[in-house]
């Protein structure tokens, strides 16, 4: 069985930052592997270690800089990687779900995986939709917000828990081929070992343009246009205790005593 795991390099914004037009200034951004994808990579690698999977391929949409992120997936045990990028994507400030679906569907067509794992959402644009959209596009079954996975290779069934709201989990059997969107907490993502990091250097990251995967510029035309970005107005009317740690702790203790919850 081949598992394709999608990963994204996401931008994290510093505590203090400035907005320039419809973007956060580049100097306030730090790039990292999307948190949810880290769990998806771990789940894929465990499927290989436990037997059902023969190969784990990681795919990302991103410029050359994203190689750094995808190497983390390789260092953690993915066998090889595909990175899709094209000049046509350079100027797009918001990659919509449809575009990501088109690009990933083309990669699925080439790779023919049995199982696709994605993170539930990306920490930056937080659409939370690409996995399920992709599943529908490629005719796979799917399950969203999966926080437990038991894979039966003989039956070709993924028994999953879907984490609903309010401390309830839904138990669902899903036929493969399938796309599962992975929730944090499903496993404990490993740290990349030094050996893994060294090995990742020699693993293949295949760069692909739109033409390489059989698409043209129409595939990345977006119906979504970001028209403004701003910092939400603070609605805080909290009383902030001033002073050093000892003073602020003293005032807090006073409040706790007043409220009658601590003596």
């Amino acid at each position: 069985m081949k598992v394709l795991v999608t990963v994204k390099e996401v931008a994290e914004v510093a505590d203090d930052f400035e907005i320039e037009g419809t973007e956060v200034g580049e100097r306030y951004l730090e790039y990292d592997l999307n948190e949810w994808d880290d769990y998806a990579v771990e789940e894929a690698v465990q499927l290989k270690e436990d037997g059902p999977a023969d190969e784990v391929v990681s795919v990302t949409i991103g410029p050359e800089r994203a190689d750094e992120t995808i190497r983390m997936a390789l260092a953690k045990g993915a066998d090889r990687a595909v990175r899709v990028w094209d000049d046509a994507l350079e100027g797009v400030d918001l990659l919509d779900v449809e575009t990501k679906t088109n690009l990933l569907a083309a990669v699925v067509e080439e790779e023919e995986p049995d199982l696709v794992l994605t993170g539930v959402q990306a920490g930056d644009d937080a659409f939370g939709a690409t996995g399920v959209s992709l599943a529908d596009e490629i005719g796979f079954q799917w399950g969203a917000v999966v926080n437990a996975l038991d894979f039966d290779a003989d039956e070709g069934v993924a028994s999953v828990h879907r984490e609903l709201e309010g401390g309830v989990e839904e138990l669902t059997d899903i036929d493969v081929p399938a796309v599962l969107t992975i929730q944090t907490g499903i496993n404990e993502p490993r740290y990349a070992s030094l050996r893994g990091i060294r090995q990742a250097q020699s693993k293949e990251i295949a760069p692909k343009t739109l033409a390489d995967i059989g698409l043209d510029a129409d595939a990345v035309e977006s119906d979504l246009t970001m028209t403004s970005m701003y910092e939400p107005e603070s609605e805080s009317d909290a009383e902030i205790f001033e002073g050093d740690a000892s003073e602020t702790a003293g005032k807090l203790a006073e409040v706790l005593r007043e409220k009658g919850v601590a003596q």
Partner: protein
Amino acid sequence: MTDVLAITEHRRGDLRDVSYEVITAGRQLADESGGDLHLAVISGNATGFADDLNREGVDYVHTVSEGEEFNHDVYTQAIEALHAELDPEVVLMPNSVNGLDYAPAVANRLDLPLATDAVGIEYGDSLTVTREMYGSKVETTVEVGGDQQAVTIRGAEWSAAEGVGDAEISEFEADIDTDTGSRVTGFEEVGGGDVDISDAEFLISIGRGIEEEENLPLIEDLVEATDATLSSSRPIVDNGWLPKNRQVGQSGKVVTPDVYLAIGISGAVQHVAGMKGSDTIIAINTDPNAPIFDIADYGIVGDLFEVVPELIEQFE
């Protein structure tokens, strides 16, 4: 005329709050565009839910009886059929866990541009959606093009529709293939354990800010000194530092203590959903812009590793 089709949600026999919220959001859009608000309730006791969904502002309620519990294949097919029949400009769906399990498929199948997790919507010359990015640090407005669109809305951002309406209620017959590739086999309550945090009067709750598991004993000392109950935000449970029954938030427990002391918790919307009903909210965080301060009554902008030991001293 611009019609809106809003999809409701139910689970294990009960309509969920977001069902009434999509009515409010849908009515607002329909008013702005001069169209009708169609509501759909799919599976379960669909016809039984229809009366309760007939609230002020709803023009039509369509019930689809196929299916017992939520199944994304049934929902996707039902909405596809409703869309073909009603031809609405906008399909509104909840940005819930189940919403995320069918809305993207609906948008893809109907070739509709999709904007998820909307916290604001506006219909002027075109549809504009307000969304958050970077963990609520920024808000963006996004113009959604195309003639027809799909939008999912964040829960609790719109008020619940009230009053009794005079909607036309009808059964919608859709040709649905129920022999699907995914089957719900049951539900499970998570947590259990020895402590029910939803009963506590004083919760001390920790988040990412405590950095390492090695720092947990410091907080436990404070919990002991103040006779509080320990709870946490999601990352602490994801890391396995505390069991699932201690998690406060959308996917954890909803709590309403007299005092909620949030230590090193930034206040992501999913967490706030679980604790905003607390009587008094106190936050300790190094980032003065952390969203937790928006809902806090008292706050300390400072390093928890300096404040907590001082606080322990106050109660020893």
